[in-house]
């Protein structure tokens, strides 16, 4: 773990939070809730003291489906571009000019504002050797930071958790959505995933089929208390647990711990989310909702290092124009709202956002007003401390310079990861990425 940053340990976390959970079996619920709320405040303060205001946060935003980089960061003055895209090509009046050659898609007004404010970097021509054009394989390559011909068991963020966050509490990584991204896969799995704090809990049937009210939640909590926590509260009266028929082997231990993590983070997350207000207006889209939740959790003081959100729909093989316009508008506006929210909270200096997509798209448009799977594409890095502007150079669009019709990369995406790990998360990138990648100067 890096010397600058100390996390609350699991033990501290359990000690501080379980007490609240345990009380709720024996005291009336309003009292328990009050206790939990009071206690959560206290826990926050503790976090602030140990992690300080320099506890940096990474937000990874996946643009799933393969974003058309050429119509996102547009080489509007390039003849090859317009020749390859007679229908889809964006002319000067349809873009937000960054310089004499390059501009942002007109619907990325949110990004343009951030760019002008010195808070947004565009890393141009990002990719990797031997690009794979399969969505899921290329996504996996990005998520595990592997070479194109290797399979890695764990994700790059999971390896970060393994290397730098041993003993952290479970909310060190939070994925907004149902599934855990492959990037979180780890030797010792960490992180929680949720899409909606309201569902991230033990759902009690509102009313049973026979009309009775169900009151199972309290019993559920008791059933899921791990031995350690139970012992803290019940003293020595339960020594007989170890004579149980169930074997306290590793699988049961692991499950008990995860059950505890789930309960504790469920309580914590729902408590935080319910008492934090957003300070910006977000688009009513899945991405907007995801970032809104991330903002609430950051504002509430969840000790998270990495948030993961995803926006789908970029696989624009047919009639790309309208769909892409809609996606980018949603992207730009959602991220802009998030940045405002962070500023309102006073947390913007702690947050870095990074976007990625599994691949860009073919330079030439297809006959259906769309584009097919391609290779290199830009990434966006957003934050107060980023080296704003256009980084790297635009890959050449000259037909002779393309590889099977696709842009060649200049920047290996793992150089971006390396920079994020070293300069932002303050940890050595080599053990996480498997080798030394030159760090791109982004911060």
């Amino acid at each position, binding site marked *: 773990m890096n010397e600058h940053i100390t996390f609350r340990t699991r033990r501290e976390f359990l000690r501080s939070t379980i007490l609240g959970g345990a009380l709720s079996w024996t005291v009336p619920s309003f009292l328990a809730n009050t206790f939990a709320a009071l206690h959560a405040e206290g826990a926050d303060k503790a976090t602030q003291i140990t992690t300080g205001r320099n506890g940096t946060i990474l937000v990874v935003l996946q643009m799933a489906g393969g974003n058309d980089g050429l119509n996102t960061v547009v080489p509007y003055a390039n003849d090859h571009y317009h020749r390859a895209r007679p229908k889809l090509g964006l002319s000067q009046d349809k873009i937000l000019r960054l310089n004499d050659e390059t501009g942002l898609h007109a619907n990325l007004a949110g990004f343009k504002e951030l760019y002008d404010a010195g808070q947004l970097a565009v890393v141009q021509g990002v990719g990797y050797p031997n690009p794979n054009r399969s*969505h*899921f*394989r290329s996504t*996996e390559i990005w998520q595990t930071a592997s070479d194109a011909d290797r*399979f890695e*068991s764990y994700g790059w963020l999971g390896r970060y958790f393994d290397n730098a966050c041993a003993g952290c509490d479970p909310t060190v990584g939070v*994925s907004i959505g*149902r*599934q*855990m991204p492959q990037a979180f*896969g780890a030797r010792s*799995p960490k*992180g*929680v*995933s949720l*899409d*909606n704090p309201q*569902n*991230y809990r*033990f*759902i009690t*049937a509102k009313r*049973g*089929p*026979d*009309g*009775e009210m*169900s*009151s*199972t939640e309290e*019993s*559920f909590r*008791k*059933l*899921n208390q791990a031995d350690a926590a*139970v012992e803290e509260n*019940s003293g020595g009266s*339960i020594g007989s*647990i170890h004579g*149980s*028929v*169930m*074997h306290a*082997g590793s*699988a*049961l231990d*692991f*499950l*008990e711990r*995860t*059950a505890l*993590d*789930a309960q504790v*983070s*469920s309580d914590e997350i729902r408590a935080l989310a319910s008492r934090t207000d957003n300070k910006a207006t977000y688009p009513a889209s899945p991405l907007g909702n995801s970032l809104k939740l991330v903002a609430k959790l950051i504002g509430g003081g969840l000790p998270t290092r990495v948030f993961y959100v995803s926006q*789908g*729909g970029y696989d624009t*093989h047919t009639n790309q124009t309208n769909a892409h316009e809609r996606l980018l508008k949603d992207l730009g506006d959602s991220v802009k709202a998030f940045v405002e929210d962070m500023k309102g909270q006073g947390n913007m200096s702690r947050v870095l956002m990074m976007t990625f997509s599994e691949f860009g798209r073919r330079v030439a448009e297809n*006959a*259906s007003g769309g584009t097919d799977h391609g290779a290199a594409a830009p990434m966006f890095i957003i934050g107060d401390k980023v080296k704003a502007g256009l980084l790297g150079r635009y890959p050449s669009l000259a037909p002779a310079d393309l590889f099977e019709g696709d842009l060649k990369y200049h920047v290996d995406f793992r150089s971006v990861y390396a920079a994020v790990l070293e300069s932002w998360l303050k940890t050595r990138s080599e053990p996480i990425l498997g080798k030394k990648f030159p760090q791109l100067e982004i911060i």
Partner: protein
Amino acid sequence: MLRRLADTKWDFGTAAHLSNRAGFGGPPAEIEKLAGLGLERAVAHLVDYESIPDSTENPAWAKLDPERAEKLRAARQASEDERRQMFRAWQQGERQHCVELRHWWLERMATGPRPLQEKMTLFWHGHFATSMEKVRDAYLMWRQNDLFRRHATGNWPDLLIAAAKDPAMLVWLDQAQSRKEHPNENFAREVMELFALGEGHYTEKDITEGARALTGWSYARTRQEFIERPFWHDRGEKIIFGKTGNFDGEDFLRLIVAQPQAARFITAKLWKFFAGADAPPELAAALASEFRAAGDNFKPVLRAMFLSEAFYAPDIVHNQVKSPVQWLVSSVRVLERGLPPPMVCVGLTRNLGQDLFAPPNVKGWDGGLNWITTATLLARYNEAATLVQGDLSSMAGAFPNQPNGMQMERRLQNARIGGVDPEKLFTQEQWADKEALIAALEKRLLQGKLKPLQEKTLRDYLAEQGELRPGHVRDAIRLVMATPEYQLT
């Protein structure tokens, strides 16, 4: 030789363990019946399944499309726009078939007469992990599934060769396009790394030479069949594992299986799948030599495993995380309820991290503790309510980021899946005596016991309810399913 389990150790608990691992578990009456057979006959009942008739019908669409040639021709002649439309319509049909296919297979697991055959089919699906996401053809996925079922406990080289020639596999690992001018190494690499030997037991040279040997094995799109294309085959000399010869694909695969490592690799994986833990060295060696002595056949090894003392060791029993498929199928079996409708089943298993016919990659599901995250554990706890109380809240947002996700969710909301009938599961005496009910809940759902404090929780809960009505018992069932213990088998 593996040491056999003593007959005195054969009882309800060991019979339940065998049923859970070699199959998908079952209600107490079924376990009692298995226990009553005695160890030898119980194992034989599972392993020698060929004598049990299986009259399950194949899905209606699971056959060669007689109009395929015409459709392909029409697609070739269509304009690009029309072709895209055709493709979309075709893909939608395939996706629908795949939903049906998943349900068809789950139904076989839940109610079929040959549990071990289905369990082994599931093993092979995870082993030769092939995904619909790339193959995009439900008929090919069904064919592969059928292949695994037919070869489930058979001969290893036969299965390996059949799997290599299987159309879904030919598409999945790009063998279909491999020709002598530019051999594709994808299958040659994975067959050694993931299917038969493991990393470190072959060289890069073996891969390139193996890929050359495999050239010419391809896929005939119109007939949806394996095809050997002699003009694509590299007839030159190859050196594989230090042996020189004019090898073809079959030679290459037989050379792989003949490697001493091959027997260790596949038997170790089999042990891990059924026992849930790595085999210690002596056991691994014994399994490998049992396999060789049996002429590379799986059935004798499986029989030896299920009869062995090691398989029933205290650190093996109740110590394996149920896979999502195991969780769903064994749950409906112990609850004596039917499977929910196809879309709900897909949602349930997908939420828990296992989408049949769509493993995350060619390595298959990592399994074990990896099934469990805070999100999937809470999902299991809430899906218990889906199965027990018919509560579909656990399904909200089950299909995010999918082109037809909203439509799927609407269909889910309209699904009526029902709950369990607790009157059927417990006797009148158990309804009347709460202690007896707790014991019956534990026996049915856990085939073991909760910890004393957990039992007390359940006792307190039931006491609070006064005279028990079905809803209370449903709640109690759901509570037992929402424990760490229930996630283990």
